[in-house]
Structures are given as structure tokens and as C-alpha cells.
């Protein structure tokens, strides 16, 4: 049939006369002319390209031919009847199935030909809600990708995990590749990853979101071309480059948002500081005293804040009842008994509104031979914690120049400076104000006075360290104003590439890229109760990763077969250096020099890794319906003695193209895909021989050396991941409903395990290749264009669903558990037969029917080293909505997570210190309480009856204070279900119409938006009694921090405006 038509057309051409057709092609989006659109006469070899004004002229159009085909990249093609003086309006085609995606090594491919699951997030989706960083912009937008931002502090780092957790390495984040060049995403965090430290943010956030064109997540085998580094998936970032159209534009993108602290832990406001001060204790020990007299004699009375008064060195809220007419000596009552009243907003009072402003000015220009974009950006964030901030200055250039028909070059450079005057110290330490504000605190403390007098000095000019207590905790304002953690990171990453096309089918590309950063942090303590004589730690980290690739690409068509072959080599060299000086004991307070320290401790650490690789990829496409890809890579790494080979194969089939009869308006698109790959995850440097190490300091002037406590392994191998997946894409009703479903399995073997040994064997750890973790999971993306109307309301909804299940099949002979994170006696472990990430700690001993056993004196019976739960969510769902109505557009995103247990240090301490609201509920401090009936009513408690020989409902009574103190060691108490429903993003945008803008002459595009990020925590599980944001983190940003919450700063809601202008 087609053939006949062709024949007919040919005949026509041969015999007919011709005419001239002209017209203009404009964009429906902005009414601007489209440059470079292609106009062809249907069935003829006549065609033209629109010029700079969007106009075209077709000479020699045969008479009798009726149809023009107009097409342009990114627009829906149109077929129109030929007229004279045509005005052709093209609509952009977001839903175009011939979508081009960027895959491994920066290769552009038709999406339909890809046999792996991959998902792309475009610039608009990233920037719509003015998310403060790329990691938060990506949250919830890619199925199977969990982005967990740690806490509500300025510049917080984030952990990205793709397709669940399958490795036992601390760091199992995906490889980040920007415009073909891998860059470091290491988290620069100080501290021990166990109890505390300062979070200096994730490396990936050095990229300005406004500079990003798209982010593609390669989830499984799609990453195979990265071989030894592909094991945890790859995130490909493509930056913006020039314009699609010829000409020069200048754009400004700006936003201003205000951050409000939300999700403060729920505190009680009935009892103040002290011990044994409640009505129950008064009645027990009253000695006939009035409550007033009892309270001042035994409950609380301030003298010196360090035990000199009555319980005035107690940083707990088990004191007398507030708002009850009592008058007691207090830290701010100047030696006179003052009304003992609650200050329920005292925690909130400490926080302030944070302000974030973001400005990006960019210039983009495209001409025949040059495509260039340059941008300058500035971002400044002040935190909700007083005196914390982060500024980022960025500059980027991306230029492609066609030197002649065969040679072109590309240069791509990004410079970023990230700078903070002060960042919050996190975890369990005096220098983290959360500790003394929330966890160990008096609920009567007047924050305003602490703010007013923090800088108070005595006659000699020395700080008095004015505070509500004079041990353990320093005034939080003093901490934030005098104990500063400053930071500056300078970073450059970019590449230069040359392309040579000797023939139209052959391309040779040489690429050289570098990622360099230098980061300097200085953590200073003028005074706190951990370092009364002052402290500072200065650290300079630098990292250089150098990559060179040489790639040859051949593209040929043999009949119906399209062949693309690529061979390439990669040379990689990575140098990392850490120089640190740590000083405690400063002679003159507040002078942070080495000379001022009694015993500075210097540390140097280096790492050098080099690898060489060869790789190849063969893509076959047959008749636009069947595609096959095969890739191979061989890696030689300095860290490993052997070389390793990584193959992959994938297929994509479009049955509707093979059997066109099946294609209908209902079933408009159908794709089946499958892939298999072997990928790896390499080790860090220096792991294959044993060394002696030196202690940081000398002892009595003598260097101390010790044998490695880890038994290293000379035959170390990279972690090996075998993965396969099958998937399908289905488009219904002209693709108004689109489903993408994937099922995958991963088998991760040869895990590099730093096995904790029975420590009596002479080593505390052994490095072995062992173990196996299997993962399987489902990812589902659904998109529905619920309403579609050119002039009316458009509504698109998108759902991302993912579920991953891991199972630890084996570890190492004789070892059935492997520790990852640890804090406060809680371990996160991999246990054979269970999922990755069991929380292990002390639990209650329970009767067979689940009641907690109480001993004869009414304290719970516990058992140590028991599994308390698992940190992995059952599933994740994000639900996005996009609305468009004329010039208005808007969107919102709901994020839902089911399950994933969290052990909370905040919960542990607020319970034991009596500041949590649960510790004063239902009058439990006024009476003797029966466990399960009056107190801890969410549980049942039983005691052993020796006469009946049975466990029976507990009848003993306890007092609230003793009760919560006795629960202290039962870690299980402080674990909650991390499920949540969040309104993560919201935005409403107004695009100024062309009719208005054309009057300004200068502005071609303008829009203004109302934006919100982390808008509301709508629901949490009941077990989350403090109502903490389940995404608040611990003190480690890698695997060690997952599932552990540690005195985290409350998260905040950002609301603001965003402005976009294009000139």
C-alpha cells in the first residue's frame, strides 16, 4: 500500500507542474518564530528549513500535492493542507514517544530503544518548587530512588539509594556523572559517624539546579558501561547548553523563600526542672510539708546551677508542677523566689525564620556554528537555627563550537564556592543546642533571658556563661554565636572534548575532565562543658578526579538494520588528601591558632586510586521495532590485583510496530523490555596489605605504633552485582494514560566485608569478600493526562511507586550478623535470613502473647542484642499533580512512605528526662500508676505469680519518674515506625501573556510563582509520639546513619516566591 502511494507520488512528480508555497512557523508556547523547523511536502523530495524569522519558502511544489509535513525537535509534527502564506503553529510535545534520553557515557538514544529502566527528570520538574538543592529537588520524583535529606539544618547532606540497599559498604551511593564526567558526591562530615559531628553537605549539591537541563537515573543494568563503579546505579546530569533556537537570550531566575521551623517534638508543659518534684513524690515524702515547701526543699531550688541548690544541676524536668502558684528560686530570678510557670514556646523561641534567596543570570546563544550558555548564580541561606548560614557562588559555561564540517569542540566548566559562617554541630554533645533545649532541659526555662544575657561578662570582662545550668550545657545562644563551625569549599569541574567526524557515520571523540575541590572547615569552641578550655579543629580536604576517555562511534544502516558501535577507553586517576589539626586546651580563650594550644594533634591522610578501562557497546535496531544492546567493559584498578569484566545485554521490542493491526486509539503504545548485567562496586585504596599505624599523638614524646586491627586481604575483589529486569511501557488513549512497570532482581555477591570478629582472635576486623544479598523489587510509574484542553484546564497526575525487598542470604562462615551503623548500644545490622538493616538493641522480654514481663519490683525484664525492627520502608509512593489553565500552572507533590523503623535518641532522652509530652500525660505524675493501665497504656504488662506459676496482668504500682528512668536501657521503647505522608512540594505559577510582554519590548518571557517546599507533614504513625519528621537524620550520611535519629534539628517548611524573566 505504501509502496503504491510512493509509486503514485513518483508518477505525479514526473508529470505535474509546480508552484511556490511560503509561510511562517511559530510556537504555540510563546508565539515566537521557530528557527530550523523542517518543512517537507508529503511524498515529495521537496523541503525547506525555516530561517531566523521562522519563515520558509518552498519552490517547485508539484501541483496536486495537498499536504505539508512540518516538524521540529520537541514539537508535535503537523500535517497541513497546502495554502499560500501559511501560518503554522506547532505545539510542544511533552508526550512525544520518540523522546530522546541520555544514557551511559552521554550517548543520546531514542527512549523506546532502551531495554533498561531509566527515568528522566526535566529542568521544569526540578525547579518548579524552588527546592533548595538538587537532592531535595529529586526527592520522590524517581521511582525506586530514595533521597533522604538529613535533618533541618542549613546545607544538610542527603543519602540517595537506588533500588534499595544491597551493599554492606558504608558508602553505597550512586555514581554522579555530569555531562559525561564523573564527579564526587562524597559527604564532607566531621565527627565519628556515631555520636556527633558537623554536616558540610553532599558534593552533588555544588551543582546549581537552574543550570540543569535534565537528570537521568540509570537504575540497574543501564549503568553497566560504568563497570566497577556502576554497582549502586548512576545519576546522569546534563547541564543546559545554548538555545534550541538561533539567537541570544538572557534569563534571570530568582527565588526568595522563608523557612519556618515545623515539626518540633511534642513536649510537656506541666512540670519544670528538678527531680522528685511532682505531686506523687510530695505525697510520698511530704513530712507534713506544704507543696510549696516540699518543692523548694526537695524539688528544685536554684543556687549555682551545678548542684549547689536543690537539683539545680539536674538537666531534667522531673521537678515541681508549674503554673500552680509555686514560687521557687530560678536561674533568672536573681535570688528571689519567682513564680514557677511554664514557657511552652521556649523551644520555638530559640529558632528564627530562615531566609533563602537564589539568583541565576544566564546567557544563551546559538548561531550556525556556536552553541553557548553561561550562567552566574548566587544563593544565600540563613538557617532556622540562629546564626547559621550557607552561601553559594557559581559560574558555569557550556560551549559547543563547530570548527568545520568534521571537527567540533565542547567546553564545559563549572565553578562553585560554598561558604558558611557557621553550621550546627550535630549529635550528642554540648555544642549541639538541641541537646540542652529539647533532650536534657527544664520546661520552665525562659529562652528570652538566655538570649538577652548570653554575652554577659563579669567585672574583669570574662564571660559568666549565663545559663540555666552550669554544667553539661552551655547557653544555646553562646554556642551559636561564639562556638563557630566555618566552612568553605571551592570546586571546579568540567571537561574539554574534541570531536572528529571523518565520515558522516564515524565519530571520534576525545574527552578530558576533571573534578577538583578544596574544602576547609574550622570548628571552634570558645567554651562549652565538653571543652571548658576551648577547642578547635581545622581541616583541609582536597580531591581531584581526572578522567580521560577516547571513544569511537560508528553508525551505519544496513537495510532495515541500524547499527551503532562504540569502543572506548577510560583512564581515571583520583587523589584525595586530608590534613587536619586538632587542638584542645587553648591558653587564651577564643584564639584559634596552633601556637595557642597545649597539644596540637596533626593528622594526614591520603588516597590514590588509578584505573584503566576498555569498553564497547553495540546497539542494533531493526525496523524501529526491535532493539538490542550489548555492552562490555574491562576494568583494571590499582586497588584490586586482578582485572574484572562486566558484560550486559538488553532488548526492547515494540509489538505494536511489528503487528500494526494491534495499534489502536486505545492501545497506542506498547513496549516490552528485558536486560541482564554484571556490574561491580570497587573498594577503596590500600585494602590488600597489612600495615602498622601511628596514634595521632605521641605519648610522653614517643611515637606510638600499632598493628592494623583489621586483617586485610591480598586477594580482594570488587563487589559483584548480577541483575536482571523485565519491564513494559503501555500507552493508552493516545498515550493519555502511560504505564511503566519494572520488575528486577539483584544478586550482590563478594561483598567487601569488614567483619567484626570475636575480638579475642588478635584482630577486631577482617576484610573478606563474602556474603550475598538478594534484592527484588517493583517500580511503577503511572502518568495520566486527566484533563487535556488547549484553552481550558489541564491536569496531569503522576504516581511513582516502588518497593524493594532485600534478603541477606549469607555473610561469612560462622557469622550471621554484620554491623553497619552503631550508636547508643543500637546497631544496624545485616542478619542472615533477614532484610538489610535490622535495628538491634535491648528489647523487652515478652510473654508468648506479647505482654511485657515485669520483674517483682515492677521494672521491665529486658533482653539484649535482639532485633527490634528494620529500617527499610515497605514501599514508597509519590503522587504528583500538574495543573495548567491558560497562563496559570501549578503543581503539588505528595510523598508517602510506609514503614521503615527509626530509633530515636531524642525520644530516648526526652523520655528519661521527663520533657516529652508523654511523660506527663493523664496525671501520671500525681499518683501511683499501674503499668499498662495508667502509664504506657499502649502496652500490656504481666508479672509472674509464683503461686499460680503463671504470668498475670501486672498489678504493681510505679511512679512516672522511676518508670521512665527504668525504661532507659530498653532501647525498644525509643523506636518508632517511620511512615509518613508529606506535602512535599507545591507551586503556583503565572506566565505573563505575550500580549503584555510584547509591549515591554525587552522581555520575551516572564513568570512568577508561589512556591513551597517540605510544606506539611500531614501524617505520621502513632508510635512517633514526639511527631518527629521521620526524615530527620542522625550523625552519619551514609549507610551508618540510616534508621537512627540523633538530636536532630527540626525540619522546616519553605514558602516563597520565584521569578523567571527571559530577555
Amino acid at each position, binding site marked *: 500500500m505504501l509502496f503504491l502511494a510512493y509509486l503514485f507520488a513518483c508518477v505525479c512528480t514526473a508529470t505535474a507542474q509546480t508552484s511556490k508555497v511560503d509561510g511562517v512557523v511559530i510556537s504555540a508556547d510563546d508565539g515566537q518564530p521557530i528557527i530550523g523547523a523542517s518543512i517537507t511536502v508529503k511524498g515529495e523530495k521537496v523541503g525547506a528549513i525555516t530561517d531566523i524569522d521562522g519563515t520558509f519558502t518552498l519552490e517547485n511544489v508539484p501541483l496536486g500535492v495537498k499536504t505539508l509535513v512540518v516538524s521540529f525537535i520537541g514539537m508535535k509534527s503537523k500535517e497541513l493542507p497546502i495554502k499560500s502564506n501559511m501560518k503554522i503553529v506547532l505545539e510542544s510535545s511533552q508526550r512525544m514517544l520518540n523522546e530522546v534520553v541520555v544514557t551511559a557515557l552521554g550517548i543520546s538514544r531514542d527512549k523506546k530503544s532502551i531495554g533498561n529502566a531509566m527515568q528522566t527528570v526535566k529542568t521544569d520538574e526540578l525547579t518548579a518548587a524552588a527546592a533548595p538543592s538538587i537532592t531535595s529537588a529529586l526527592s520522590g520524583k524517581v521511582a525506586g530512588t530514595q533521597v533522604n535529606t538529613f535533618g533541618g539544618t542549613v546545607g544538610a547532606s542527603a543519602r540517595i539509594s537506588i533500588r534499595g540497599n544491597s551493599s554492606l559498604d558504608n558508602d553505597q551511593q550512586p555514581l554522579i556523572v555530569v555531562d559525561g564526567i564523573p564527579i564526587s558526591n562524597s559527604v564532607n562530615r566531621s565527627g565519628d559517624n556515631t555520636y556527633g559531628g558537623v554536616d558540610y553537605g553532599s558534593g552533588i549539591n555544588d551543582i546549581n539546579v537552574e543550570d540543569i537541563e535534565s537528570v537521568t537515573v540509570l537504575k540497574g543494568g543501564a549503568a553497566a558501561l560504568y563497570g566497577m563503579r556502576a554497582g549502586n546505579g548512576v545519576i546522569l546530569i546534563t547541564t543546559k547548553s545554548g538555545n534550541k533556537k538561533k539567537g541570544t537570550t538572557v534569563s534571570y531566575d530568582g527565588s526568595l523563600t522563608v523557612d519556618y521551623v515545623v515539626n518540633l517534638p511534642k513536649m510537656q508543659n506541666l512540670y519544670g526542672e528538678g527531680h522528685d518534684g511532682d505531686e506523687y513524690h510530695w505525697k510520698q*515524702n511530704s513530712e507534713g510539708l506544704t507543696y510549696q515547701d516540699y518543692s523548694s526543699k526537695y524539688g528544685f531550688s536554684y543556687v549555682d546551677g551545678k*548542684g549547689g541548690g536543690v537539683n539545680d544541676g539536674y538537666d531534667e524536668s522531673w521537678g515541681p508542677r508549674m503554673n500552680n502558684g509555686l514560687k521557687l528560686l530560678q536561674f533568672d530570678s536573681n535570688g528571689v523566689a519567682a513564680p514557677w510557670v511554664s514557657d511552652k514556646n521556649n523551644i520555638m523561641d530559640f529558632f528564627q525564620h530562615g531566609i533563602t534567596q537564589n539568583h541565576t543570570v544566564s546567557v544563551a546563544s546559538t548561531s550556525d556554528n556556536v552553541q553557548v550558555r553561561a550562567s552566574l548564580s548566587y544563593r544565600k541561606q540563613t538557617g532556622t537555627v540562629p546564626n547559621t548560614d550557607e552561601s553559594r557562588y557559581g559560574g558555569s559555561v557550556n560551549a559547543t563550537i563547530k570548527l568545520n564540517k568534521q571537527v567540533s569542540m565542547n567546553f564545559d566548566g563549572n565553578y562553585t564556592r560554598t561558604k558558611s559562617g557557621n553550621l550546627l554541630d550535630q549529635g550528642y554533645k554540648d555544642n549541639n543546642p538541641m541537646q540542652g533545649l529539647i533532650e536534657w532541659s527544664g520546661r520552665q526555662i525562659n529562652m528570652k533571658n538566655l538570649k538577652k544575657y548570653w554575652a554577659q561578662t563579669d567585672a574583669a570582662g570574662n564571660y559568666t556563661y549565663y545559663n540555666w545550668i552550669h554544667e553539661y550545657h552551655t547557653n544555646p545562644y553562646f554556642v551559636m554565636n561564639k562556638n563557630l563551625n566555618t566552612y568553605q569549599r571551592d570546586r571546579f569541574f568540567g571537561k574539554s572534548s574534541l570531536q572528529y567526524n571523518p565520515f558522516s557515520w564515524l565519530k571520534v571523540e576525545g574527552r578530558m575532565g576533571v573534578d577538583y575541590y578544596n574544602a576547609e572547615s574550622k570548628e571552634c569552641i570558645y567554651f562549652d562543658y565538653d571543652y571548658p578550655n576551648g577547642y578547635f579543629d581545622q581541616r583541609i580536604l582536597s580531591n581531584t578526579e581526572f578522567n580521560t576517555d577516547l571513544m569511537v562511534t560508528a553508525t551505519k544502516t544496513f537495510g532495515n538494520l541500524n547499527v551503532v558501535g562504540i569502543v572506548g577507553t577510560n583512564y581515571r586517576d583520583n587523589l584525595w588528601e586530608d590534613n587536619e589539626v586538632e587542638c584542645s586546651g587553648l591558653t587564651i580563650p577564643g584564639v584559634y591558632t596552633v601556637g595557642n594550644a597545649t597539644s596540637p594533634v596533626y593528622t594526614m591522610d591520603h588516597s*590514590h586510586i*588509578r584505573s*584503566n578501562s576498555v569498553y564497547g557497546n553495540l546497539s542494533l535496531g531493526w525496523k524501529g521495532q526491535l532493539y538490542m544492546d550489548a555492552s562490555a567493559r574491562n576494568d583494571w584498578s590499582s586497588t584490586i590485583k586482578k582485572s574484572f569484566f562486566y558484560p550486559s545485554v538488553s532488548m526492547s521490542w515494540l509489538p505494536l510496530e511489528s503487528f500494526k493491526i494491534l495499534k489502536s486509539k486505545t492501545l497506542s503504545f506498547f513496549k516490552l523490555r528485558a536486560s541482564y548485567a554484571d556490574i561491580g562496586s570497587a573498594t577503596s585504596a590500600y585494602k590488600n596489605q597489612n600495615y602498622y599505624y601511628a596514634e595521632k599523638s605521641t605519648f610522653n614524646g614517643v611515637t606510638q605504633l600499632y598493628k592494623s586491627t583489621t586483617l586485610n586481604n591480598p586477594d580482594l575483589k570488587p563487589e559483584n552485582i548480577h541483575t536482571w529486569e523485565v519491564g513494559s511501557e503501555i500507552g493508552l488513549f493516545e498515550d493519555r494514560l502511560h504505564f511503566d512497570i519494572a520488575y528486577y532482581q539483584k544478586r550482590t555477591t563478594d561483598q567487601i566485608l569488614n567483619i567484626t570478629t570475636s575480638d579475642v*582472635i588478635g584482630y577486631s576486623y577482617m576484610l573478606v569478600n563474602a556474603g550475598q544479598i538478594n534484592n527484588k523489587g517493583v517500580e511503577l510509574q503511572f502518568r495520566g493526562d486527566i484533563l487535556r484542553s488547549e484553552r481550558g484546564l489541564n491536569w496531569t497526575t503522576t504516581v511513582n511507586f516502588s518497593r524493594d525487598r532485600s534478603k541477606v542470604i549469607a555473610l561469612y562462615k560462622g557469622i550471621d550478623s554484620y554491623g553497619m551503623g552503631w550508636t547508643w*548500644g543500637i546497631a544496624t545490622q545485616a542478619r542472615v535470613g533477614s532484610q538489610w538493616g535490622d535495628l538491634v538493641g535491648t528489647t523487652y522480654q515478652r510473654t508468648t502473647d506479647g505482654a511485657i514481663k515485669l520483674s517483682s519490683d515492677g521494672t521491665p525484664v529486658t533482653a539484649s*542484642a535482639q532485633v527490634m525492627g528494620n529500617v527499610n520502608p515497605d514501599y514508597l509512593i509519590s503522587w504528583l499533580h500538574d495543573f495548567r489553565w491558560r497562563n496559570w500552572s501549578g503543581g503539588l507533590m505528595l510523598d508517602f512512605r510506609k514503614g521503615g523503623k527509626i530509633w530515636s535518641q531524642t525520644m530516648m532522652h526526652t523520655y528519661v528526662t521527663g520533657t516529652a509530652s508523654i511523660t506527663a500525660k493523664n496525671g501520671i505524675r500525681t499518683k501511683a500508676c499501674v503499668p499498662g493501665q495508667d502509664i504506657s497504656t499502649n502496652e500490656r504488662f504481666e508479672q509472674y505469680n509464683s503461686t499460680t506459676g503463671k504470668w498475670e496482668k501486672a498489678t504493681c504500682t510505679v511512679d512516672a519518674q522511676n518508670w521512665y528512668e527504668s525504661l532507659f536501657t530498653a532501647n525498644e521503647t525509643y523506636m518508632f515506625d517511620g511512615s509518613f505522608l508529606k506535602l512535599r512540594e507545591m507551586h503556583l505559577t503565572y506566565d505573563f501573556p505575550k500580549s503584555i510582554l510584547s509591549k515591554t519590548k525587552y522581555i520575551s518571557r516572564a513568570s512568577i510563582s508561589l512556591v513551597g517546599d517540605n510544606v506539611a507533614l500531614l501524617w505520621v504513625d502513632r508510635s512517633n509520639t514526639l511527631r518527629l519528621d521521620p526524615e530527620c537524620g542522625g550523625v552519619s550520611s551514609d549507610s551508618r546513619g540510616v534508621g537512627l535519629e540523633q538530636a536532630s534539628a527540626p525540619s522546616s517548611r519553605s514558602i516563597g516566591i520565584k521569578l523567571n524573566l527571559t530577555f
Partner: protein
Amino acid sequence: MKKIFQYIAVLLLIVITGSCTDKFNEINTDPDAYSTAPYTNILCYCLQNTAMNWGDDLSDLSTWAGFISKIQYPDNYHYISTDNFFGNKWLCTYTTVSDLNDIMTRSQSDTIGNKNMRNVCKVWKCFLVMMTTDCYGDIPYSEAWKATEGVLKTPYDSQKSVYMAIDSTLSAVADSWASGEGTDKLGPGDVMFSGSIKKWQRFCNSLRLRLAVRLVNVEPDKSKATVEKILNNSTTYPVIDNCDDNAYQRWDGTSTYYDRYYNDYLTRDDYGISEIFMNYLVNQKDPRRTVIAKVAASDGKYRGQYNGVNSISGSINQYSRMGAFYRENPKGFSPYYKACETYFAEAEAAMRGWNVPLTAEEAYDKGVTCSMTDNGLSVDSANVYLENKGKFDGTYSRLYHEWWTSLFKENIEAWSLYRRTGYPDEIHNSIVTYSDKKTVKQYPGEYCYYGTTHNDVPFRFPYPNNQELYNADNLKKVQNGIKDYCWGKKMYWDTRSDNEYY
């Protein structure tokens, strides 16, 4: 076209082979680590690491020894395994001995040329292992430190066999040095005795003496023989009998290596003098009270705190803290063996009728005088004390109370003394009556998680979590009889009655 492929092939080859992999070994050698290490620097680490962990024994041990009571946060511990404390000491022993073994292995080829260093390693290993078994009882020993031989799950040795092994090792070292010092120098790493082999020899024999006396109730013949052999051959087997030779680990006073008590003092104020100790010192008019304790800030009196109260009421200023000599010196010391211990051991031997050079009273007097000297007090004040309440009366009670007092800051030894002898009996007998008329035994105290199930301080440390997690099968075999982590099964040399002490 063929030419181009040839070019490409050549180019690829150059890239791969040119930047080839033969530099990989060099690249993958850690520039910040050492491929070998001088013995003396390893020894220094071993001594420091020992002091860091075993010299940092305030928490729990000081209260079990009867010296200290918590004046704040008495509820922090409930005698439940907390790995920070119990686990670190265990770990310290096993890693430190592993480093000592490394010296032993590497010096094997020249045992004569490394005689002193090898002997020091053996002595230190014995010292560590003895403290460890005195805390935990049965421990892995004969099959421990054998990872490279594939022993990853280590069986436990009975405490008795560990004791016998230590004894024979120490005896062998003593005989080896008795036949003459080696030629090798210990180097600057001997931060314990500054390279004096003589002092090491004394320390070795003193440990033998300590060990023998410890076994007096279970191996009386062996005990008698060893004590007589050492004390009657002071030239062959010299012991620490002079305060200047005390085995004190001095701290270097830099912030990393502050004296452990000072380090705690810098940021915490949780420890006061216990009531029983304070009352005893005051009652004795013991001049050492002024060095050991401070007067209460509230009224200038010496006042101890009850042990084991669940919560503290009133001002903490009413309680005495440790004296500055013991707690407020960044360059303070961790005591391992004091000369007075030798004399108290000799006094006990004499009281048992063994053949030793001094009479019980002579030895007792010398011990007390040494202890006064240790506290910076004069011989005169010692004499005054010995003529009054400190006078020897021929009772074990008098001897053991003095021994106890002299062991201040040497908590493990004091705790062991109590477990062996039942003295100071105040630990067992003292009670406290609270305002609600409730009467509780001061030890283990009201805050004991196990209520009144136990009437004594712990007999032992809980085994560390590490063993529960990674060596459970072997651990289970020795856990029989242990109750509530800390009670039940006693040390093998602890012969106190199960009915009276539980």
C-alpha cells in the same frame, strides 16, 4: 576505512599499555601507614593503651571497691552490660596482647639479642591478662590471638588454667632475668620504667607475689611456696618494696593523654567519696583523708555519700570530692602496683605462719608507712597514726582495712581484695535508711536493677557484647551459673560463702 580502524586499535593499545598497570602496586601502598615498626614504639602504644582503658576505672569499679559514690546520675548504670565500659577493657587486653605478640613473633629469630624486650612483653601480657581474668573469670587464652591460624571462634580457658599459665610465664621471666639482664635496650617506648630492667624485674616478681596471695584460699600450698620463695630470695627475685619503684603509669598531661581522673574532672562532677570510706578515714583520724578527700563545700566537713541511692536530693555541695592529688593533676598517675602491697602481702603471710623475713607487725607498719609516703605524708605522721588508731592489733580486719585504704585509685586490686577476703566488711554490711524509713543495703544499692535479689557488689564484669554476638557458642559454655550478668558464679579464688554473699 581500514586505516582508521588500525589507527584506533593502535591508539587504544597505547592508552592501555602505556599507562599500564605496573605502577598499581606502588599507587596502592598507603603513604600514611608503615610497613614495619620498631619494637619500642609498639611497646609505647601497648603501655599507653593499657593505661587509657584500665587506668580509666572510675565508673562502677571505684564504687565496687567502696571508695566512690555517685553524687549525680547514680541511676546511669544498673549493672547491666554497657559496652563502653566493660567492652573497652576487654578489647584493650586482646588488642594490646596482639601487638605484644607481634613483637614476640618478629623477635623470635634472635631471642637472646631481644631478651629484655621479650621479657617485658611477657610480663605486660601477664599483667593485662590477670586483670582481665580477675574481672571476667574464664576467658579465651590458650587459643586466643590465632586468627592467622584460622581460629576464629575461640574456646574459653578456665580461670584456674589462665592463672597457672600466667604464673609459669612470670616465673620463667623471673628466672630468665635472675640469670642476668639482656643486652638490648627497651628504648624510649618504655614509658613505664624508663628502660630500667631492674624495675621491670621487680614488677615481674611483685606480680608473682600478687598472684600467689590471690590464690591463698584455693591453692594454699602453691601460694605459700611462691611467697616464701620470693620474699626469702630478694636478690634473685627482687620485688617492689620501695615507694620510688612503684609501678605508676604517669600521664603526659597533654589533652589527649590527661590523667583519666583529671580528664573526667574537667567536664564532669559525678563522683564523691563514699560514705563508708569517708566515715572510716575520719573515724581512724587517718591523715590520708586530707589527701584522698576534700571537705564538703557547703560546711567544710568531710562527708561521704551513700552508695547506690536511686536519686540524689539536696545540694551536692554537702559531699566530699576526691582530693586534688588524685584527680586534679593532668600529669597524674594510674597505679598498677604499690610497694605497700608487698608489705601487706608479707604481713598476711606472717599472720598465716609462713616463713617470711618480717613479722606481721613489722610488715604491716612498713606497708602503712609506704602508703603514707605514697600520699605525700611524712614518716612522722605515719608513726603517729601507727601509735593510735592505726596500731596493728593482729587481726585480719586491721590488715585488710589498711590494705584497702592504700589501694585508693587502684580499684581493681581493691575490688579483688574485697572479693578474696570480705574486707572492708563495710561493703557488705552498711545499710542506708531513707526518709521513708525504707532500709536498703548500700551495696549493690537501691538503684540496682535487680532489686534485692543480690546483697553484694558484683562478683564479676558482664561479658562484653562482642562475645555475645561473635563467639556465643563458646561463651555459653562458661556462662553456666552466672546470674544477672554480674553475680552467681564467683572468681575461682573467691571462696566467700554463696549463702552469705549473693
